[in-house]
């Protein structure tokens, strides 16, 4: 067997059962990430980006189902693993950092026990040995006075510190893949940059693949090498981060980049108003048959309404799904 990419979602489809209907909420999403690489997945709320994260971690439950495609991590198809193997995989090989550190941490356990639990469960260490490892893990995420902090409860820490604890837990067992799902959205701008830099730095050193899910295009652009853009359950464009913002190819990406308030833009153009994307994201039950962006697209033609576009390659080495791209 030839060695494929380190991590890969291959034509992943997720469906939502609603009465007699089966709606496709994530449609043929493919994305590969290499060892130590940070790849971004951006999209607006409801675009399906978080569902991809849940599917990777095996957390898709009724009424949602994985209706097609495969998820490979180091050659193993995660989409076909049984419950027990998935449970052992989570936290060990695949970790997720969620948006809200206060709800993700257990308020009744000290942070030392919560980090140490990872070593006890996945590595079979004694509690005493796990505690030492937990202190080392805290030092690695740059928590000052780790030895003193280890017996603190989550409520005694600031938001930034809590998110550092989440990173320590997520990286405790050296996972092959780390998913950061809006990991810094709840934090201040100044802290966001710091936490992202910490995640990127730690993962690149360990060779962990990172899937960074966010709606903040600017943040993703800075941290990631490649970025995929999702709209209504499909990846519409994937390019190296620089090219995606300097030379977006899909009309949706173009509109999204245009709608972003940018530093210095008003000084250059004298314009205070921003360009808007007219209309709204369609409901899941009302996804158009062809290109899902067609009803809001400024250049849509009749072919766009008839059939879904296939990926086409772009000069930067990425892909875009637009019928009108040549």
């Amino acid at each position: 067997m030839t060695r494929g990419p380190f991590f890969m979602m291959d034509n992943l489809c997720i469906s939502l059962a609603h009465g007699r209907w089966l709606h496709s909420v994530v449609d043929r999403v493919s994305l590969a990430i290499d060892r130590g690489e940070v790849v971004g997945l951006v999209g607006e709320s409801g675009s399906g980006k978080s569902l991809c994260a849940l599917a990777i971690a095996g957390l898709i439950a009724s009424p949602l189902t994985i209706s097609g495609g495969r998820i490979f991590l180091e050659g193993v198809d995660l989409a076909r693993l049984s419950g027990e193997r998935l449970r052992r995989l989570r936290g060990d090989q695949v970790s997720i950092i969620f948006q809200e550190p206060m709800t993700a941490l257990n308020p009744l356990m000290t942070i030392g026990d919560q980090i140490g639990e990872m070593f006890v469960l996945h590595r079979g260490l004694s509690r005493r040995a796990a505690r030492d490892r937990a202190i080392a893990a805290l030092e690695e995420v740059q928590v000052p006075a780790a030895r003193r902090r280890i017996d603190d409860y989550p409520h005694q820490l600031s938001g930034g510190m809590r998110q550092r604890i989440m990173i320590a837990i997520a990286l405790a067992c050296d996972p092959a893949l780390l998913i950061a799902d809006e990991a810094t959205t709840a934090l201040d701008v100044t802290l966001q940059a710091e936490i992202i830099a910490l995640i990127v730095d730690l993962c690149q050193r360990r060779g962990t693949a990172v899937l960074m899910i966010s709606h903040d295009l600017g943040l993703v652009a800075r941290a990631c090498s490649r970025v995929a853009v999702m709209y209504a359950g499909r990846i519409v464009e994937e390019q190296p981060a620089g090219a995606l913002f300097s030379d977006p190819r899909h009309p949706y990406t173009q509109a999204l980049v245009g709608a972003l308030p940018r530093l210095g833009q008003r000084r250059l153009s004298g314009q205070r108003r921003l360009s808007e994307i007219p209309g709204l994201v369609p409901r899941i039950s009302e996804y158009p048959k062809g290109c899902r962006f067609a009803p809001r697209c400024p250049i849509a033609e009749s072919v766009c309404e008839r059939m879904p576009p296939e990926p086409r390659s772009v000069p930067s080495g990425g892909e875009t799904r637009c019928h009108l791209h040549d």
Partner: protein
Amino acid sequence: MIDLTCSAPFQEEALLRIEDARIHYRVSAGWLRSGLLKAVNGVSLSIQRGQCLGLVGESGCGKSSLAQAIVGTTRLESGRILLEGEPLTRCGRRERLRRARKVQMVWQDPFASLNPRRSVMEQLEAPLKLHGFSDRRDRVMAMMARVGLRPDAAQRLPHEFSGGQRQRIAIARALIAEPKLVVCDEPLSALDVSIRAQIINLLLDLQRELGLSLLMISHDLAVVEHMCDRVAVMYLGRIVEEGDWREIFEHTAHPYTRSLIGAVAEPLAAGTAIDRLSGEPPSPFSPPSGCAFHPRCPCAAPSCRVGGNPDPVQLSSAHWARCGLIKEM
């Protein structure tokens, strides 16, 4: 010391003037002890008619406390807030009602700020009833059209709307009784990128067409640069830099403002190192000596660590900053 309230080049009476406002909270700090949290520590600001003032800073710097004092939900420890020259001090019912007629607020979270059991019509009509307006239905329908809501939205409940639509409803509710000033506390941070642009444009249009004044509280400097006429930067309860938007962004004087601008993730700068501010703001219970920003300041000198907070330095007719290292021009 210079007179900060006169720094704006306007002769006209400002719409809102805050003079040396202080807000203190008594907070329990452990077993049988209580501490005094100085959330706002001597802030003077003014907003002219039709102007948009941006107030930026990290969480905990006191910007939301100041907003609450302006709308009257938090009491000032000392200092004054003048609206059209009249002080807002007493907090009786009639006083609050009179203030609500002139000052309204748009909150961050449109999911929490609307009553889930009242239809859009009821929620928009309520302020009109309270202030004794006639032709209420017509006003509601006109305002809904103005903020881009369809007429059939009137009978629906908030849960039937998306985040962006709800923020439109919240803006309509704030504007329906024709206030002079709207305080917006992070009105965009719960919204998606494309919706954010729509709401920014809506606020800008309303400001221009209705001659509205806006106080825009945000931590996103890119948004503030786009929207505001003046910008004030707040750190640990004090304004550390204030000026015309162009001055603030072109001739940034305070190192803290520079760090905030540097923290804006600019997509076209992809691949560049993230310019970051290390550490978190110090506890407001025990502010550091000298300049409050010195423990995090990349260019702090020994002189910044001693004494009190630096006095404001006037940099031009419409720009001043509080940093011990800048020399008066």
